[in-house]
């Protein structure tokens, strides 16, 4: 192992700016919490804009000076302080910047900045705007800590922080019970994953004796292979729950109860991809456990198809996007399972662009049609809001992966190619998933924007909403051009950027795969057009028991309700009197009783006190003899 030179805060520009990247949103959050909503909305938005702007600026500057600096191929290790030290086990609060965390840092801070600017306009009239932004900025800070921390323990702090913020923001409008229930569901389901993650972390700490990621990567391979496999399975479980992969996916559709910027930031661009990033970070260990990798690929594969199937029949625009997020995350897990780290990270980045864009556009639509989310009650919006339509169309094209012009095409092709390498079944399934994707998203496009008016659109989307959407529209198209297959153009900016960390990009395949991959989305769009093109009668959602099951997430919710929730409720009901608590009541009574007995010794009489001193001494003497 080559030790990474550790530097202390403040010795270089990067080392100075890196902690500030996290500190800026954190301070904004603290200020907003301490003022407790007394700041006017204008001051709040200005504060948030300034804090996040500085955060993004510092991130860009430190990224630039890192890439032009001497360590640009390795990692920069900024030790902030020694958190705890027990025997040989040391946990540091340290940040590490390498090319992988750099990419994530840029995505989180820059896309986060754009979404928060959008949110300033979106949430401006909400009376609780300060609380909203306190959680949002805390989320960004936690996410950046998760991304930059060089110690798994600190990663876990960020991991729990983003989970908490997700919970708080899903239930942001807690006045409605459904929102609170959705928040609780998200929290409980991801908690299952967090427990697995914690167990995996503790297992690795016991096996390796350190949670420092470079040490883990260096020493971990020497650990017993069963331990390693178990540890990676546990970490994978944690990552899956955060990323809403089957079978822990049920929380994500309900999470759409939160405000739309929350869905854009947390449930599309950043938090749900944390698991992908973490597995890419630990790929050196992951690659040693083929069983865990296979499981990862299978999980991704299943999720792609199940989620795409559900998305096909949803009626709520945000739920369509939620299922699509799940399905796209499935692609990333498939890529990870196939060892295509570059492809997973590339898709993570492009997905952050186009999915955030789609959510923002959806949010603009929802805001302007009186908070209507049912696509069958919208229609003909193309003429009412041409710019939002353009943005949504660009996002949809990128999601469907229309060839050459969209970012989604290039990242998806990279995944499909690597999947083919491992197994043609994976390839075929993923291709079918892409086919479904283009059908469901263009179904949404045609129903919402074409046909006759079924709702009244009002108002305009302001500059603060339009500008972030415009920037992301550009990125959703041009973002893909930084990595293209040789058959189209020899551009490998992204994989060259990550190669020092993730290894060289594997050999590419023939053009035949590429051609098939290009034709499938076009076929999907065509089918969507034939099925849902504007007709005289307004479109209605198809109804049948099978479709209802599909719509309700293939019955997972009902299944979990039957096997987990209801038995638990029955048990809780049986235990209304809480017989375990009776035991603790006994202990409490015992404590009180003995406390009273001891207090009675405190009689206030000196002779008794002296008597106790003598008694104690005599007892000690007797013990010694």
């Amino acid at each position, binding site marked *: 192992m080559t030790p990474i030179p550790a530097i202390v805060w403040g010795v270089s520009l990067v080392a100075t700016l890196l902690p500030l990247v996290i500190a800026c949103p954190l301070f904004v959050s603290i200020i907003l919490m301490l003022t407790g909503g007394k700041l006017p909305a204008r001051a709040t938005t200005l504060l948030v804009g300034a804090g996040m702007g500085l955060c993004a600026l510092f991130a860009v500057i430190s990224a630039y000076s890192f890439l032009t600096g001497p360590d640009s191929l390795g990692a920069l290790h900024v030790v902030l302080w020694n958190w705890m030290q027990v*025997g040989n086990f040391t946990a540091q609060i340290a940040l590490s910047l390498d090319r992988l965390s750099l990419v994530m840092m840029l995505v989180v801070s820059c896309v986060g900045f754009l979404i928060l600017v959008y949110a300033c306009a979106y949430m401006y009239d909400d009376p609780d705007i300060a609380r909203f932004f306190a959680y949002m900025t805390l989320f960004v800070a936690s996410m950046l800590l998760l991304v930059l921390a060089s110690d798994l323990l600190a990663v876990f702090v960020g991991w729990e922080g983003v989970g908490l913020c997700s919970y708080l923001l899903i239930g942001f409008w807690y006045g409605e019970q459904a929102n609170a229930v959705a928040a609780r569901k998200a929290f409980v389901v991801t908690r299952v994953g967090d427990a697995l993650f914690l167990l995996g972390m503790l297992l690795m700490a016991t096996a390796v004796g350190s949670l420092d990621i470079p040490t883990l990567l260096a020493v971990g391979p020497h650990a017993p292979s069963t331990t390693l496999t178990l540890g990676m399975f546990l970490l994978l479980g944690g990552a899956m729950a955060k990323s809403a992969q089957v079978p822990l996916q049920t929380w994500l559709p309900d999470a759409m109860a939160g405000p739309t910027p929350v869905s854009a930031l947390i449930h599309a661009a950043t938090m749900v991809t944390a698991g992908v990033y973490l597995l890419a970070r630990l790929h050196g260990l992951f690659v040693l456990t083929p069983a865990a990798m296979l499981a990862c690929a299978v999980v991704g594969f299943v999720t792609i198809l199940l989620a795409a199937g559900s998305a096909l029949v949803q009626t709520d625009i945000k739920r369509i996007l939620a299922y699509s997020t799940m399905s796209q995350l499935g692609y990333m897990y498939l890529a990870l399972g196939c060892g295509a780290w570059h492809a997973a990270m590339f898709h993570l980045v492009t997905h952050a662009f186009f999915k955030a864009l789609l959510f923002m556009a959806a949010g603009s639509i929802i805001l302007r049609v009186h908070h209507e989310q049912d696509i069958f009650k919208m229609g003909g919006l193309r003429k009412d809001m041409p710019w939002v339509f353009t943005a949504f169309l660009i996002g949809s094209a990128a999601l469907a992966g229309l060839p050459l012009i969209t970012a989604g095409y290039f990242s998806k092709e990279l995944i499909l190619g690597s999947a083919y390498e491992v197994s043609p079944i994976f390839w075929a399934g993923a291709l079918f998933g892409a086919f479904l994707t283009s059908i469901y998203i263009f179904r949404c496009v045609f129903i919402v924007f074409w046909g006759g008016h079924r709702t009244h659109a009002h108002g305009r989307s302001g500059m603060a909403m339009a500008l972030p959407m415009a920037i992301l529209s550009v990125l959703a198209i041009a973002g893909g051009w930084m990595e293209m297959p040789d058959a189209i153009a020899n551009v490998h900016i992204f994989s060259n950027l990550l190669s020092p960390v993730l290894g060289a990009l594997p050999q590419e395949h023939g053009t035949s795969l590429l051609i098939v991959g290009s034709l499938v989305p076009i076929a999907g769009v065509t089918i969507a057009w034939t099925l849902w093109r504007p007709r005289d009668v307004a479109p209605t959602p198809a109804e049948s028991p099978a479709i209802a099951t599909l719509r309700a997430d293939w019955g997972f919710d009902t299944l979990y309700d039957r096997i987990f929730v209801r038995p638990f409720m029955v048990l809780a009901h049986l235990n209304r009197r809480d017989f375990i608590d009776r035991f603790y009541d006994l202990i409490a009574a015992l*404590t009180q009783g003995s*406390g009273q007995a001891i207090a009675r*010794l405190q009689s206030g009489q000196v002779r008794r*006190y002296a008597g106790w001193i003598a008694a104690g*001494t005599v007892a*000690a003497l007797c013990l010694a003899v």
Partner: protein
Amino acid sequence: MSFSFLPNAVLVLCLGSLVQLAAISWRRHVARDAVLCVIVLLASLASIMLPTFLIMTGSLPLFSSDSWGSYAGALIILSVIAIVLMSRHGAISADPSVNSEYFILLTLATLGGVAMTCAVNVISFFLGLETLSLSLLGLIAFRNERLDAGEAAMKYLLLSGVASATLIFGFALIFAETGSLRFAMPDLSHLPEPMIGTMGVILVLTGMFFKLSAVPFHLWLADVLEGTTIPVASLVAVTSKIALFAAMLRYFSSVNLGVPSAQVNEILIVAVLSMLGGNLMAVVQTDLRRLLAGSSIAHVGYLLVAFLSPQPFGVASAAFYLAAYAISTLGVFAIMNGVLPQGRDIREWHGLFRRKPAAALAMSIMLISLAGIPPAVGFFAKFYIVAAGVSAHQILLLFVLILSSTIGLFYYLRLILIMLTPAPEGYVSRAELSMPTPANATLIAVLACATLVLGIVPGALVDRSQGIVVTPVPIPVHSTIP
């Protein structure tokens, strides 16, 4: 040829108290004396950092200078500075003519404490102990218009006399056996009559446990804390315990406490009793000061766990714990003193979050720290003690520590709950909220920040405490003079 060091701090404090005395005999001026006291304390604190400048050769070694002594001495001086900042003229005495002596007594108490931390001879230890005890006695009785102050002082005087006599008798027995006045536990196996030596050590332990207020020698503490003023109560609960614990650690540094023996068994039993007894006592108290007395007894028990774990892990964790305990306990006393001086009954604290949010927040931080919950410094302090105990395989002690900490959680968190909820129906509050003096408010802010910052960034204090070693008490080369 042997060397004896006269620690700088002892020298500075001696001279300082003389200067204070001269100032009073010239003319009384309370504010000036308070400032003078702080200056003397600051000077002694600064002098700890300097190398010793007075070395006597060829004489009986009375003091040594090592990092443990300096660390404990610095803690003592800092805690007394905090206590001076807490003290308000009105609270000290209704009779302004005696207020100035209060500060001399504080300086003298500091002198006694610092002397104890670096004493290597029974004589110098005992002189330090009595200087501290007698100054405490004066301070406890200072508020002469109140009956319970006199009662508390009388109780302390009588019981402290018993304990000192026991201590002296123990030293005498050991001297009779070994012929040495070295302040270190003798190697009992090499004595002609090990029984006498063992008895001597046990009597010494009785005296020390009394001053530390470990169960079952603890009964005086609650009455004294209740009877005296808040600053003096914190002096009893914090400063004198640091001094005694520091000296006790030095006394036993020459033997391996991992090997079972009569003394180790006694310390073990006392640790168990203190942890359980202190917490159980605090659970049922409705008087805040008696509650804090229980808490203080329990913390002595935790410290004894570190004490029983072998060096150097035990020393480092004890050093860290002493600092954490001092900060948080002083913080609680400072808030009591500044915000609700008459808030003896815990029901007086109802609704403090609504009435004084900042003070209630600071109080909650201190209580969380005492309970050992992150992110306050008390968490790491307890964590390190547990780590030291684990490395020493003290399973029984750890079991009791965890059990009694759980009991402790109850009353610390109940106080926070009380501050959050309004007073029950029908309870008529008698205590009035007061505005803390600027000095007191600053003290509260500093202590609250220290509790949080050291809890989040404990590295600085950990590094400091891990460098601490207790140098064994030197054996005199020529032992013609004992």
